[in-house]
């Protein structure tokens, strides 16, 4: 009897090890694109991000090498509880390997914890909070495209240096707005400016007139918009209505996306300065990709930087899997591999992933064109400057990420 138990245990152990060996050759991958599919961030991420992930899979050429890669999508509705519930279900039931996109910093930080717990891979492109690779960094997380630190140190810094030394903030009242205000405040004060006031407004506010009047009354030189999507477009549109530009105050659109400019219209948006890390009309490669992308979009819109980041992130992820020779279904291992390889793609150019998970690539300062300068339905930006990645993003010495203390 003892002998049979022993042989049973031995047999099981053998089975487990052979199964482990089989996993190393496993070439199945499941990608979950988790985004706001129908709310205020749906156009800058949403279905376009799912498409970007699918295009990355097609362009990777891994199907020809025997890989089977699926992309599924989910709608977190900008609610952290829904986001984490979907993430759990994806890992536990659907056996998803990697979650991509996830705009809305509140949801993004909540999902970050789930992915770490489940040892999945997290390639975030849509969320802004720099905490993802700073205080709340995780060995399973890679943050592509942009973050609040970068926005503050590009747009924010440029405005302070141009003489905008007193600021009033309109801040979206959740994790993202708080992070953007905090990071921008640090830049403003470090450059000798001061913050004269601010209001926190609820997410998805249709009317900003009360807040704009307070900003106007503050006499601050710069009104910093620490909000995004529909909130930013409404702020800018209504600020023009209240004659804020004419009164000598300047708006700082700290975070502005291509789709936002479309919604505001060039008439009102012209002259705004802001920062993005991707624009469809940068070079031949970005134009070629954007054309392919727009042809597949229902709205025929070219990709936003968030969608471009999803594409680039998934491409790099698949390169890492290819280099590993199979899918180990081990998030930390895959992310370590991603960090060990330099990033390079048609959309963001050359870059790297730092040990804290932050992807470093160039950032560009743009200005919105005048209506007379625009030659097509999406011809909106003029390039006015660029900042190399190592100056745009959090220096490792300043990062509080626990992964750096190893």
């Amino acid at each position, binding site marked *: 009897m003892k002998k049979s138990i022993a042989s049973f245990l031995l047999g099981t152990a053998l089975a487990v090890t052979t199964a482990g060996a089989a996993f190393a050759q496993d070439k199945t991958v499941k990608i979950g694109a988790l985004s706001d599919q*129908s709310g*205020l961030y749906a156009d800058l991420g949403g279905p376009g991000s799912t498409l970007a992930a699918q295009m990355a899979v097609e362009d990777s050429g891994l199907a020809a090498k025997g890989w089977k890669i699926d992309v599924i999508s989910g709608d977190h509705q900008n609610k952290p509880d829904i986001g984490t519930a979907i993430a759990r279900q994806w890992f536990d039931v659907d056996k998803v390997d990697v979650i991509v996109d996830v705009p809305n910093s509140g949801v993004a930080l909540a999902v970050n914890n789930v992915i770490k717990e489940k040892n999945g891979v997290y390639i975030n492109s849509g969320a802004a909070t720099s905490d993802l690779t700073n205080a709340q960094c995780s060995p399973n997380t890679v943050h592509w495209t942009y973050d609040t630190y970068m926005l503050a140190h590009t747009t924010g810094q440029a405005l302070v240096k141009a003489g905008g030394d007193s600021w009033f903030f309109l801040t979206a009242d959740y994790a993202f707005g708080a992070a953007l205000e905090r990071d921008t405040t640090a830049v403003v004060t470090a450059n000798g400016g001061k913050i004269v006031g601010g209001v926190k407004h*609820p997410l998805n506010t249709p009317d900003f007139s009360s807040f704009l009047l307070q900003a106007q009354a503050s006499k601050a030189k710069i009104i910093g918009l620490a909000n995004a999507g529909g909130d930013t477009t409404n702020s800018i549109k209504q600020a023009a209505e209240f004659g804020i530009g004419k009164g000598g105050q300047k708006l700082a659109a700290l975070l502005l996306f291509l789709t936002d400019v479309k919604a505001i219209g060039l008439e009102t948006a012209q002259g705004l300065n802001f920062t993005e890390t991707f624009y469809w009309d940068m070079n031949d490669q970005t134009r070629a990709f954007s054309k392919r992308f727009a042809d597949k979009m229902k709205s025929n819109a070219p990709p936003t930087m968030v969608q471009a980041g999803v594409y680039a992130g998934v491409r790099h992820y698949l390169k890492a899997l290819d280099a590993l020779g199979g899918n180990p279904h081990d998030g930390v291992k895959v992310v370590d591999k991603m960090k060990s390889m330099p990033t390079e793609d048609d959309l963001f150019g050359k870059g790297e992933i730092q040990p804290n998970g932050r992807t470093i690539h160039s950032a560009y300062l743009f200005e919105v064109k005048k209506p007379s300068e625009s030659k097509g339905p999406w011809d909106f930006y003029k390039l006015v400057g660029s900042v190399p990645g190592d100056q745009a993003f959090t220096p490792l010495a300043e990062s509080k990420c626990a992964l750096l203390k190893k």
Partner: protein
Amino acid sequence: MQALYAQLLVGLINGSFYALLSLGLAVIFGMLNIINFAHGALYMMGAFVAYFLLSLGGINYWWALLFAPIIVGIFGMILERTMLQWLAGLDHLYGLLLTFGLALIIQGVFQNYFGSSGLPYSIPDALKGGMNLGFMYLPIYRGWVVVFSLVVCFATWYLIERTRLGAYLRAATENPTLVRAFGINVPRMITLTYGLGVGLAALAGVLSAPINQVRPLMGENVIIVVFAVVVIGGMGSIMGSIITGFALGVIEGLTKYFYPEASNTVVFVLMVLVLLVKPTGLTGRAA
């Protein structure tokens, strides 16, 4: 102190939208006994119709103020004829669920085609610019919204409460059989009333198009607040909904000044208080 005046005025502007929308809801509830959850979606359609009239037909804002309510009103009447009329006499819940479903479908269809970030609609040239009132810079367009809404609200109140047509209408809701006996086509009158209520929503949509984005979800945010307005004012009370609409706009404006974080919730806090103290609403009669 100056800032306070400015906030009061801004509150009045937002109150104009609440008043126009809650008025339409009150008319529909008072006359048809339907809790029209599709109101926000129809408001959104008004704004979209204005956008299309301009971008496709070159028809300007002023004509849109006339045509958009008519077009959306006709759409509303079709809804009433084909669906809502079969619910007459049933529990309120049926109408609520049906219109809620319709709202989701309408919003979904628009979102599918136009995305979520919205389309630009500029302020008409005649109403561009603003004037300095000393305590604030008032955009002329906003001033226009307040004046125009007040006129429309008063006209609607007058139509229903002070004219013969209004009297028929009110009689028809009290006792349709008797009114029909006088040779009045009650179902047609009900349909037209629904069209009127929907037209008011569309009108509010056109008015808001230059201020907010023309976007599929624009009605979703506002409808919940407007329902609270109707509940506070007293379900079905025409004057109650107008006054409450403006008053809540002002209260919300003051909240934005004193404690902005609560500006989304203050209306509902008031609603709870009113329901606790006077469940029929401020001007409502006991059922």
